[in-house]
Structures are given as structure tokens and as C-alpha cells.
């Protein structure tokens, strides 16, 4: 099938092995297929969202070995590390501190971008447990929210930071 996102119709699919949310999975995909497609369409992991398709909005953000990447532009053949999506950072019984902070601060409005926002926030807090406002702004600048929930996002990151420090 032709894809405008780089996969060539004449390329044969290859069996690929990925580790996603701690589980080893196998998919048949062209190496140039964006990771986002592989996750959503082949692995059935729907947390990462399609927004712009050109790494300009952040809705598709996932972690690869803990670092935020835009899965819409990362060819699945270039994935070198463990992939974590929003489904993998917590559970409904035990939310990740960032997820809980998102609820406590009532961050989401329409919610479409929020999975990506949360993944970027997790990547930030993995590296900087108590980020300053400027560090938050620098880390989150590539995640766009058309509902303009930015003040609540910043507040939730601060709350998650405080929660993690207490536990």
C-alpha cells in the first residue's frame, strides 16, 4: 500500500522485533514505516496520537530508552531501544505520578495532545526531577495544545515533581 510518509510500495515488509512497554512484540513492517504507524496499526497500541505527521506538534511522543521521540517521523527500522508509550507508564490501579498530577490539575480539555504531553513530561522528570519553569518550557515547547492548557501542564509537572519527591 502506498504511504505518503515515506514507505515505498515496492519495499517488502520485514519481521521486526520491538520491545514496547516491557513486552517483546513482532511486527511485519517496512523499515521506513513510522513507528507511530507500527504501534497503532500493527501492534494495536493507540495511546500515541497522529497530529501533524512532521514532528511539529508532539501528539505522537513516545519514549525510546527514556528519551522523548516523535514517533511519526522515527522509521521503525531505526528504533534502537525500548519503546514506552503512555500505556506503559502506569496502570489504572497505579497511575504514574504525572498521570495523577494531570488528573489533580484537570489539565486536559479536548485531550487529544495529552498523551504526548505526558510522555514529554515523563522524559523531563526522568532527567530533571525538580525542573524550573524555564526547564519545563524548554522541554515542553515542542508539544502543542490548541486548547492552550499550558499553565495547567506546567502546574501538573510541578505537582508530579513534588509528589515524586515525597515518595
Amino acid at each position, binding site marked *: 500500500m502506498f504511504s*505518503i*510518509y*515515506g514507505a515505498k510500495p515496492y519495499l517488502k515488509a520485514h519481521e521486526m522485533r520491538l520491545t514496547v512497554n516491557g513486552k517483546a512484540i513482532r511486527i511485519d513492517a517496512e523499515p*521506513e514505516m513510522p513507528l507511530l504507524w507500527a504501534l497503532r496499526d500493527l501492534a494495536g497500541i493507540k495511546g500515541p496520537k497522529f497530529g501533524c*505527521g*512532521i*514532528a*511539529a506538534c508532539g501528539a505522537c*511522543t513516545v519514549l525510546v530508552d527514556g*528519551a*522523548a*521521540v*516523535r514517533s511519526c*517521523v*522515527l*522509521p521503525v527500522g*531505526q528504533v534502537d531501544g525500548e519503546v514506552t508509550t503512555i500505556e506503559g507508564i502506569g496502570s489504572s490501579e497505579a497511575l504514574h505520578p504525572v498521570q495523577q498530577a494531570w488528573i489533580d490539575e484537570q489539565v486536559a480539555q479536548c485531550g487529544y495532545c495529552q498523551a504526548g504531553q505526558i510522555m*514529554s*513530561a515523563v*522524559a*523531563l522528570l526522568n*532527567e*530533571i526531577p525538580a*525542573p524550573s519553569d524555564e*526547564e519545563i*518550557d*524548554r*522541554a*515542553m*515547547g*515542542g508539544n502543542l495544545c490548541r486548547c492552550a492548557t499550558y499553565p495547567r501542564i506546567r502546574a501538573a509537572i510541578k505537582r508530579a515533581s513534588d509528589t515524586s519527591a515525597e515518595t
Partner: protein
Amino acid sequence: MKRLILLLFVAVPLPALAQDAGLAEWQKIFEVFSHPRCANCHTQDDHPRWSGAHYGGARIHPFNVRRGPDGFGNTGLTCQTCHQETNAEILHGPPGAPEWHLAPAEMVWFEKSSAEICAQIKDPARNGGMNLEEVAVHVRDDALVAWGWAPGPGREPAPGSAQETFAALERWAGLGAPCPQDADE
């Protein structure tokens, strides 16, 4: 005829010929180094630049993208969050090459004159501690530098090629690596 040749050597000393030839080689190098595909990530401030037909003049990279402590961006939004090892093939998609990052802040090419860039290239304190041979090899072999000639859809590549720029650097160095003066430009 012999007198004519002798006269030519007297009138135009060899060092002056070498100087002119060297400056001509430097001009080829400058056209590469000052090209947006190269200069946009050789900035003095914290921000890489975008430029090209789609963007009008050069503009600061959106999304609050910054140099970060090591030139690879900031925590949570490194260059490689979006810039993968290969170009996105879709128009306006992020370009990619291995180890995408900004040049060190002391290697400023963006909006610098030919004389200023030339002086920098010869100064190990501002060129990554390299001699001219190492600079030439870096230009020829580095994967991120090579991206400048293969920048992906919708972007004008730097002039020439890595090999041609390497050769120009070799010839320029062999001719004494002359630099233009600002008043010459």
C-alpha cells in the same frame, strides 16, 4: 619570449599569484560554509535557524528549541527528539542525519563575513582544535556535514559536494590559506 616571461614574474610575484589562487579557493569554501544548510546550525546564540523558500528569510527554529548544555538540545526536547538519522521524506518533515546537533557556539558562521569565517577556520580555539587537514577531512567524512548536500525535499543543498569542498580546502591550505579582508568584500 624569455624576456616576456621574466617580465611577468617581476611584475606579478609568485606569492601574489598564490594569494589570488588561494582566495579563489576560499571563495568556493565560503559559499558552502555560509550556505543556510551549514550556517543555520552554526549560530552564536542559543537558537538554530530555519530558512528556505517555504520560510522566507531566516527565522529562529520554533518550539523554543535551544542549544542546551552540549549542543544536542535540552532535556525532554533534544534535537534528536525530532531529527532522526534520515530525512523525513515528506515536505516540511524534519531533516535527519546521525548525531543531529548544533555546532559549538564559538564556531559562528551565521551572518558572519567571509573574512570572519576564514579567520575562524584557521583558529584551533574556534574550530574544534583541528588543523586545516583535519578540517578538510571532517568536511569530507562527517555524516552530519554530509547532510548539507542531501538535505531532503524542499531544501536547497549546499553548493558542490563534500569531495569538492574537501579538495578546495586542500588546495586553499596548500596555497597558504589566505583570508580576505573585510574591506575586500
